[in-house]
């Protein structure tokens, strides 16, 4: 077994110092070391996007990074985006528009959508579909996911001061 490496990351605002194997993927670090199981693993080829988190404010697939590569970074997972008492507009949009069924792709989908709206606050339907093509959903046919993102975009436009998540 390879020698462990010391890393420091801030996850959802909390600083963690951990010793990790160099081969440990960021997604497994989040799920298994930190117990943040909201970030899911849906494939082993970086296609499905279920593991999408924000790394220093940008959406990344956490299965494409080793935990050691996140050393010194700030990470937001679905658990840090918003809570039941204070939902992020994208979370609210998914609930309002029935943007989820089994819920498994949902955290990654929400993180990818939130990232899109950070970059492009008023995306067209085509831009939404394009931005989410790295996230697979087998339940919804994407119909209500598109509507959920549109809901969130409208909500964020109408409410000045909705905090960005990172």
């Amino acid at each position, binding site marked *: 077994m390879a020698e462990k490496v010391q890393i420091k990351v801030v996850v959802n605002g909390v600083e963690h110092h951990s010793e990790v194997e160099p081969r440990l993927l960021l997604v497994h670090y989040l799920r*298994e070391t930190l117990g943040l199981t909201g*970030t*899911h693993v849906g494939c082993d*080829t970086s*296609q499905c996007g279920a593991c999408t988190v924000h790394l220093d404010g940008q959406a990344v697939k956490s299965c494409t990074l080793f935990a050691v590569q996140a050393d010194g970074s700030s990470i937001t997972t679905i658990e840090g985006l918003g809570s039941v008492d204070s939902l992020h507009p994208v979370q609210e949009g998914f609930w309002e528009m029935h943007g989820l069924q*089994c819920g*498994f792709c949902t955290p990654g989908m929400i993180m990818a959508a939130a990232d899109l709206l950070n970059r492009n606050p008023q995306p067209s339907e*085509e831009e939404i579909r394009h931005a989410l093509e790295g996230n697979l959903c*087998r339940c919804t*046919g994407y119909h209500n996911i598109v509507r959920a993102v549109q809901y969130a975009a409208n909500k964020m436009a109408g409410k000045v001061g909705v905090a960005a998540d990172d």
Partner: protein
Amino acid sequence: MAEKLFGKAMKRVEDPRFITGTGNYTDDMTLPGMVHAAMVRSPYAHARIKKIDVSKARSHPGVLAVITGQEMKDAGINSIPTGWLHPGIKTPPHYAITFDKARHVGDIVAAVIAETRQIAEDAAQLVEVDYEPLPAVSLGSDALKPGAPAVHDDIPDNICFTWSIGDKEAVDKAFASAYKTVKLNLRNNRLVPNAMEPRASLAQYHKASDEYTLWTTSQNPHIHRLLIAAFIMGIPEHKLRVIAPDVGGGFGSKIYQYPEEIIVLYAAKKLGRPVKWTARRSESFVTDSHGRDHETVAEMAVDQNGKITAVRVNTIANLGAYLTTFAPAVPTYLYGCLLAGTYTTPHIYCHVTAPFTHTTPVDAYRGAGRPEATYLLERLVDVMAHELGMDPVEFRRKNLIPPDAFPYQTPVALQYDSGNYEANLDKALELVGYKQLRQQQEEWRKQGRYMGIGVVTYIEACGLAPSALVGSLGAQAGQWESALVRVMPTGKVEVFTGTHSHGQGHETAFAQVVADELQIPVEDVVLVHGDTGRMPYGWGSYGSRSAPTGLSAIVLATRKIIDKSKKIAAHLLEAAPEDIVHEDGKFMVKGVPDKAKTFFEIALQAHLAHNYPADLEPGLEATHFYDPKNFVYPFGTHIAVVEVDPETGKVRLLRYLSVDDCGPVINPLIAEGQVHGGIAQGLGQALLEEAVYDKEGQILSGNFLEYTLPRADDMVQIEHDHTVTPCPHNPLGVKGIGEAGTIASTAAIANAVMDALRPFGIVHLDMPYTPEKIWRAIQHSRPAQAAD
């Protein structure tokens, strides 16, 4: 009076946990002392296992056990049985870990248990298996050829079963005297279900009480408990608890009894520690049961009036290497019996030959047999309409079963309960603007643009029932459903159902109905499902049975609660029970609104029993076991509009409209969501998805790089509406909606693509319609295409 919730697009109560990342899927769970399993899988489709050397793996630091098939067989672990039998069916053994031969890529030859998943996977690579590779066969028709390699030594012809339905003689006669006939050779492409949550299982054994708990990604935990207890492991049924917590999609693939569930249970007892296994997606591709995979010759005959007189079908249905739980039912009763579709066809004959091959087992995948039937029937209808020079819609209209013909007895066993097909078709045509679309298609063709319009009128049979009938057809299980409604002293209500929700929103929709029935706030109702330790019994969710069967049981149990509540109210109000009415959320003396008791007051008194009828049991709960009288028969019309780019062969979906009829809709948000997802999966089959095997039985599309799932930019916003034709034989009149989208959309898109290609003289292509396939077909046809 509280607002009626039946029919309301209520937001789902299950969503807060999913949108905040606090769901509880099997792989999210960690138990004290938990260890991990990794499987050693055959890289060969067919190989004799000459020797297995586990010594290196066993001595790897952190490894606790390496389990072989021989060890489990010696420990008395039996083969995994199938749940459906036909006369003369061959049921070769299916051991969780094979010990003589590997019969498909991914067949388990050993399991490694270690302190961490990483160690288990490292050590799995240290297991040395001495394979003797053998010739393999992957295509059903190849497996039937003389001299083909046998999948199971004692079944040299590879035939698991043959099956037929219908009057062959009458059909042959109808063909002999037909005005016109058409014939299609169809390949229904093999699909990988690909629920987004990979399968996972976690087992725990309590030595002191000799009890097991299995958490697993399942659509039907009681079926696992029964199979494991009674057939496979001999665990007393009351010592095994199976829990299906949050499950990330199923689509059929999580119905079956899989080997890994047996392995983790065995290992948990052996080691005295909880054992977890979670599939990697590449394992899912070769071990989750696949869907479809038919090779079919389909024929249709008509008379001079354009009435369909007969349909004749001969299908080879590839079963893969082993029989899984419901595999024998899928290409037979769920397929051949659906070949009347929505039409008055008087004579139908279907013959099915089901061979084993050296491929991943094939079983039910969303729609299960019904999409295969709909696809071939609706392709035949379009091709025949073209032969007759008729618009495909008018040809359909001429042959639809009229509304006054219900209940309608088909020539293939089923009796349709209710339907109004033509009204549904007309609504869809009007909404989509069919005439204008045909005009636009003409104009586009003049400009060298190729639009195609595909229309499908579909029927679905769901909620298999009654149990006695299903049993007579070969099911080794009942198909009734149970419900327990438990009222607490504070008037809050727990509803236990034997169905399972893995995305379908039962926690919301079923609570809406219970709240209506009891006239209480929906917040006071909680649905409990997915745990053999909590519900009375149940057969789970598949075949769109949850609403027609599971919810019917709930409603009837709830009505028992109301009857008992009336008796308690009558006692408290000093009235006769027959004078008590249940209105405005209260139990009151008819015509005397002042004399009333709330549901809470009754629930409390039922538990205190201080002032209580002498002849009545205390407590307020009711159980109901509901066995439906018949299947339910949803139907509808789907219309796809596509454009094919002749230069690239790319198919672009322009519009998709569905008008579905599943009876009264409980929650439109959820019902429409089911349709959207089903349509996307059907589009996947038509345009993108195929499990491709080479002749040696290697899967060539075994991950998301090579197997294309529909993505957001493959879809359009779906136009949806519905008609309402209630089911006449269940308490709410509801039918199923879970599979309708998949059943109709593959055929609708296929018909649309073929319609677009008509100017090129192309009559039929097999799915999926990849750009390359379309481009080649167009290139091939170019010389004949002078007119365009």
